[in-house]
């Protein structure tokens, strides 16, 4: 029986987030929180793997109490167990402190053969969590996985297709293995009524800094985060585009040529 862990994050829907141009901070008020889309692909890969080979899928997240909504979404989409790590002491954690808390808590939850992560989060987008977790779990890592081709229970290996900029490659890795997943073959499923209803009342396990044994207070939250953000600012937006509509293709081309000539 495979034991599969999926690490997820609830993020603000960045399409709806605006940035205060003066303070550089994100205006999150009234912005809905969603399950990080890349994590939803990872969850789908985990659930498909479970459906093919058997096993259990556990989802874990670190965040405030409202992150249970993201976990319920995971349960509706096929996860068997959901765990929330929530404590004021975890606040202001960078990726190092977050991966420390998740990896330490995961020891409580079992021994995992496969760990799935989104490649990055919509909000922070550092893309660091997966590699840090792979190190902390002492697991091999495959990034950009577009298809899990085969799991060999005897050899304890996984064969997966990776989608890279210049093509694809098939890799074999030893279990335990952490994978980040591309959407290609793992479009998140829409839950059916039965699983959705079950997810709404399912128990969500919750752990705090006090209930995770062996957690070093110096490695969590603000004290455990070497990353400091001195300033945030909106990206510089280039010149606004313009529509050329002069009435015909020939006139449009002439206008475009005139504009380009001016620049050259």
């Amino acid at each position, binding site marked *: 029986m495979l034991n599969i862990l999926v690490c997820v994050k609830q993020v603000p829907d960045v399409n709806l987030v605006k940035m205060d141009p003066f303070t550089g901070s994100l205006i999150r008020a009234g912005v*809905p929180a969603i399950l990080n889309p890349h994590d939803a692909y990872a969850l789908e890969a985990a659930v498909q793997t479970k459906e093919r080979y058997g096993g259990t899928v556990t989802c874990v997240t670190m965040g405030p109490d409202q992150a249970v909504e993201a976990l319920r979404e995971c349960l509706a989409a096929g996860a068997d167990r959901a765990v929330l790590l929530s404590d004021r002491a975890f606040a202001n954690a960078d990726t190092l402190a977050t991966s420390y808390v998740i990896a330490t808590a995961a020891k409580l939850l079992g021994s995992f053969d496969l760990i799935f992560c989104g490649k990055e989060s919509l909000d922070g987008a550092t893309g660091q969590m997966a590699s840090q977790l792979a190190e902390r779990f002492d697991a091999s890592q495959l990034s950009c996985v577009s298809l899990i081709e085969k799991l060999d229970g005897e050899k304890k290996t996984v064969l997966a297709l990776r989608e890279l900029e210049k093509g694809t490659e098939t890799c074999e890795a030893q279990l335990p293995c952490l994978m980040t997943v591309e959407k290609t073959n793992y479009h998140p499923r*829409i839950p*059916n*009524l039965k699983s959705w209803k079950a997810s709404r009342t399912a128990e969500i396990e919750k752990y705090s800094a006090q209930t995770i044994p062996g957690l070093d207070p110096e490695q969590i939250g603000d004290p455990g985060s070497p990353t400091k953000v001195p300033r945030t600012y909106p990206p510089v937006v280039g010149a606004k585009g313009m529509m050329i509509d002069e009435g015909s293709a020939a006139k449009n081309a002439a206008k475009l040529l005139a504009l380009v000539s001016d620049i050259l």
Partner: protein
Amino acid sequence: MAAYNKLSPLLAQKLSQIVGKERFQYQESVKADYSHDEMPIYGRYFPEAVCLVESTEEVAEIMKLCSENKIPVTVRGAGTGLVGGCVPVHGGIVISTERMNRILSYDLNNMCVHVQPGVRLCDLAADALAHGVMYPPDPGEKTATVGGNVSTNAGGMRAVKYGVTRDYVMAMTVVLPSGEIMKLGKSVCKTSSGYSLLHLMIGSEGTLGIITELTLKLIPKPLKDVSLILPFQDIATAIASVPSIKLANLDPQSIEFMERDIVDSSAAFTGNAVFPTVVKGQQVGAYILVTLVGDSEAELTMKMDRLGDIAEKLGAYDVLVVWTDGLKKDVWAARSAFLTVIEAETRLLDEMDVVVPVDKIADFLVYTHDEAVKQGVSVRSFGHAGDGNLHIYCCSNDLEEDEFKKRVAKLMERCYAKCTEFEGQVSGEHSIGHAKKVFLRESVGDTAYSLMGAIKQVFDPNGILNPGKVCHDI
């Protein structure tokens, strides 16, 4: 043949003075966009001039001038129509309302909003929600203007619960062809006060007057909503479920149907395969998409349970719950992209927008598909299963245009006749324009058609307003 005059340089100068040079296009400077709508198969017709108006007074001055000089005038919103309604088939000038795009004020005590006609539907819908209220009409084309929606009495996806645009127009300011400014309706819910000129104006496609301001009814925003996808083996089984869904006291906000091929195309086009194509190991042939609203999750769960029971009995493979905002956005974006997808994949395109009784939808679709095969034209369809409004697109990528038109004419003649036999309507929301006049006449009969023509004559004795449209024969 009505004798219209050409726009002389002197008249053009006067028009230019009314709106200002910046907002006036004349002859060579007229942009090509103003010569067509989104159904180019009905031809391109350039206006002699375009006036981008910004006020009721400007429209009134223009109409006085055009009335005195017998210059045809065609009003245009966003140009997203599909029957040539905003296309100046007899030349003259186009009055564009695109710059009259302000939401003027909300009156939440009386649950209404005052807007200019050029406000885009998507902007009004979002702004209303931000004010904690909802503007219920929800036609698929979100970039259409509300003026265009009122002129065509657009319906949309939520019509099954809330009704159509007509039900949300409380009052309007109109400029008559003579240039006289008139206010129709009041911000009240009832009237028993003579003939409703307001309702005559709604759906008249800019042939009786020019709408320059609107008072639209609002409702409280539903607190919770959920969409559900019911996958079926085929379209007949899917459609057969609709009467039972309507009878189950669920008060659904929308009941849409879609066939597998259009869902596949939409997935390829948007890159987002959100609708599952295999459910419980079975290939899906058609889908019903239902939206339910309520005050709480508990209420919605109760309704979903009831729908689940019905769906199972009626042969749905499963009931899929679109609960999260992200999924809702993806599902409805896929649904809204259908026409764009068809346009992108098709070289030659024509359409029907018939309405038939709900229990005749499947029969009508089967008939249309059979007739299309006989004519060697492919058809693709989707639409509003809850109210029987079908959007059927006739497509070809290999026929010559003349041959396509001949075949589609035969196909449409038979389909519209079948629609009349089924006690249906020629158009549910796209209107008549100049493309569907002949079918309107056949559907309503000579007497009704003549009465419509007589009404047009009363409002517009010179026939200068959107000539050649709806019931106006030249």
